[in-house]
């Protein structure tokens, strides 16, 4: 009898004990948004006021990329300048994932040492830290380099903040004091330098792959001609001034050839100029308009605009070893107007001016699939140019009757306006990565 009671109890106990299993929680979607980051104003060790607000430049860069959401200064929970001074908990509390702290030190010889640390607030550790020597006139550039490091550490993609943009500014349009200016500035619009100023129109700036020369079209001599100018030495060279159009220069990826549009043989056709000999090779032979050439990343194909099909569309030819071209193949079929192809640095996409329903917008077509995505939503967008990291496209648009520059991320999610100064700004061209 005792045995039976005991066995009964034992059974009861076993039934009551709970089973152990690891709980699995499935997450299948998140939220879209930019990474919250706090760029704390840098400390300054030196006399007087800091010569530059490095943190502000960095925060503006990161915001402009669309990938980051810098914390406004009034919401910051402290002003640390070094990792040890950072209380990660309080930064986490304001929703920041990453904190950037830094210091600007004036040296005896008049130069500066810029030191910064990128910290992970969630894990409480340092992700990157550098100390960069800098001349007084290089401080903005150093700030852009810091932005590049932060961008690449957190997104895995190379940053394009330490780059240039070239563009044309037209003032006094319609008056007799009209001027046209070809200018180069930092990618954030600061530090503008005039390359060329003229009363006659200037068009189509194009960066050579070495980042040191600009090709452009100028009406200086009363008619359009293609020039190449070294932005450092200011040396100028005429490349094409044939009768008719000399237009739309585009550098080959190896920098040895220039594709352009000439109408000397009766109507606008694509030619390739050898930069060493200035010998011409004709690429298209058709009575329609063929213009706006752009090189594929491997330098063996050319994209161009042609209205041989009735309205402007993008076509592509392959160049063989001798430089001769195959029959053009049409690439764009959506919309009644597709022109001014610009090739992404990885060669997988082209950005075009896409006209449909009376609106002209920037669209990106994936070359593999032919799928076209419209990225902008105004009505007079033109001249798309890829950043050298392929993450953004800068283009010209119209705002309040004025020409301004704007940038859009490649996925179309983030838009920025870059209104630089007075006058009409147009035809932006993003420089390649700087070569040291």
């Amino acid at each position, binding site marked *: 009898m005792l045995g*039976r009671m005991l066995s*009964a109890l034992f059974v009861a106990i076993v*039934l009551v004990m709970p089973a152990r299993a*690891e709980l699995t*929680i*499935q*997450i*299948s979607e998140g939220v879209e948004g930019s990474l919250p980051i706090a760029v704390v104003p840098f400390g300054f060790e030196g006399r007087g006021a800091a010569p530059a607000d490095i943190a502000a430049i960095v925060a503006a860069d990161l915001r402009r990329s669309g990938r980051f959401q810098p914390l406004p200064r009034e919401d910051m929970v402290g002003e640390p300048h070094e990792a040890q001074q950072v209380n990660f908990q309080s930064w986490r509390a304001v929703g920041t994932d990453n904190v950037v702290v830094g210091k600007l030190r004036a040296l005896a010889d008049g130069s500066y040492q810029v030191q910064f640390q990128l910290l992970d607030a969630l894990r409480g550790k340092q992700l990157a830290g550098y100390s960069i020597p800098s001349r007084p006139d290089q401080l903005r550039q150093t700030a852009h380099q810091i932005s590049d490091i932060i961008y690449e550490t957190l997104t895995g993609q190379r940053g394009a903040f330490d780059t240039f943009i070239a563009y044309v500014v037209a003032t006094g349009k319609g008056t007799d004091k009209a001027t046209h200016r070809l200018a180069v500035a930092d990618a954030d619009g600061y530090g503008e330098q005039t390359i060329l100023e003229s009363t006659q129109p200037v068009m189509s700036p194009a960066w050579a792959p070495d980042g040191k020369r600009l090709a452009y079209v100028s009406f200086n001599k009363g008619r359009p001609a293609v020039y190449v100018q070294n932005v450092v030495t200011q040396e100028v060279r005429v490349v094409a001034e044939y009768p008719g159009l000399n237009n739309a220069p585009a550098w080959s990826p190896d920098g040895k050839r220039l594709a352009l549009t000439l109408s000397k043989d009766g109507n606008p056709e694509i030619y390739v100029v050898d930069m060493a000999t200035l010998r011409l090779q004709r690429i298209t032979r058709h009575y329609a308009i063929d213009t706006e050439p752009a090189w594929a990343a491997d330098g063996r194909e050319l994209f161009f605009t042609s209205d041989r099909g009735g309205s402007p569309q993008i076509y592509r030819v392959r160049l063989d070893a001798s430089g001769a071209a195959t029959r053009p193949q049409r690439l764009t079929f959506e919309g009644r107007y597709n022109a001014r192809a610009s090739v992404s640095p990885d060669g997988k996409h082209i950005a075009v001016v896409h006209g449909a329903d009376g609106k002209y917008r920037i669209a990106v077509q994936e070359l593999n699939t032919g799928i076209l995505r419209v990225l902008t939503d105004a009505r007079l967008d033109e001249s798309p140019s890829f950043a050298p990291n392929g993450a953004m496209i800068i283009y010209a648009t119209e705002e309040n009757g004025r020409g301004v520059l704007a940038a859009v991320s490649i996925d179309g999610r983030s838009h920025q306006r870059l209104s630089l100064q007075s006058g009409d700004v147009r035809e932006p061209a993003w420089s390649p990565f700087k070569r040291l």
Partner: protein
Amino acid sequence: MWNLIRSYPRSVLLAVLIHLTIVVLLTVSLRWPSTRPTLSNAPVDVVKAVAVDEAKVQAELDKQRARERAREQEIKRAQEQARRAEAERVQEQKRLAAVKEQRAEEQRKLKEAERKRQEQARVEKERLAKIEAENKALEQKRRAEQERLAALEAKRKAEEEERRKAEEARQRQEEARKRREAEEALKAQMAAEEQQRLADARRAQAMSTIDKYRVLIEAKVRQNWLVPPSAQQGMVCVLSVRLIPSGDVVSVQILESSGDAVFDRSVENAVRKASPLPLPPAELGLYDEFRELRFPFELQRKG
């Protein structure tokens, strides 16, 4: 012209005549009918031909002979047919005779069979009679046996009865004990079942509580997950997360990487930012369920 005619009358006349002749000839020749040969259609009567052909005579003779032969053959055929008919009639008669024979045979056989059956029946009856007699004798013997057995049985029963009464007395005692024991066992069992029910109820509540908090945790992590723009649909990263009873995350381990460092980091960040995770109140004692959590992050929809 008239001088001409006067000076050369003969020549002129000749000329004119010749001309006229030529003209006439030409015109007349044109009108003559063509001379095409035509076939005559007059029929020829063969029967009235007088000439007698030898070949024809021979042919007539041949025909007659052929007719004779044909007649002879006819006669032969007729004779043949008559013979055949006769033969058939004879055969028929034979058949009929044979059939009669068979029937006679069959009847004889039937009668034989009958006789045999009747014989057998008689034999059977005799056998049965014998068996009956035997059975009766056996029966009597059995009855006698049974009576003897019955007597024995009665004795045994009497003995049995005594034993049974003794047994019953013992059994009653036994049963009393068993009843007591059974009652106690039942009580114990009921108590055990009660406990089981209570445990189940607690467990069910625990499960629903677990589910409820699972949903809360999922929501909080989801809200804190900033999906990077480079993320592709279908990317999977699995985390193993350890919590302390307050819900704070103390360790995060990547069990399965998505292959994209940026995606992996975003997923880790999501869990860390969601810390402390919502946990059920300590009194419920469910902390063990939540001590170690497994988070499979799979991007199914891109917004």
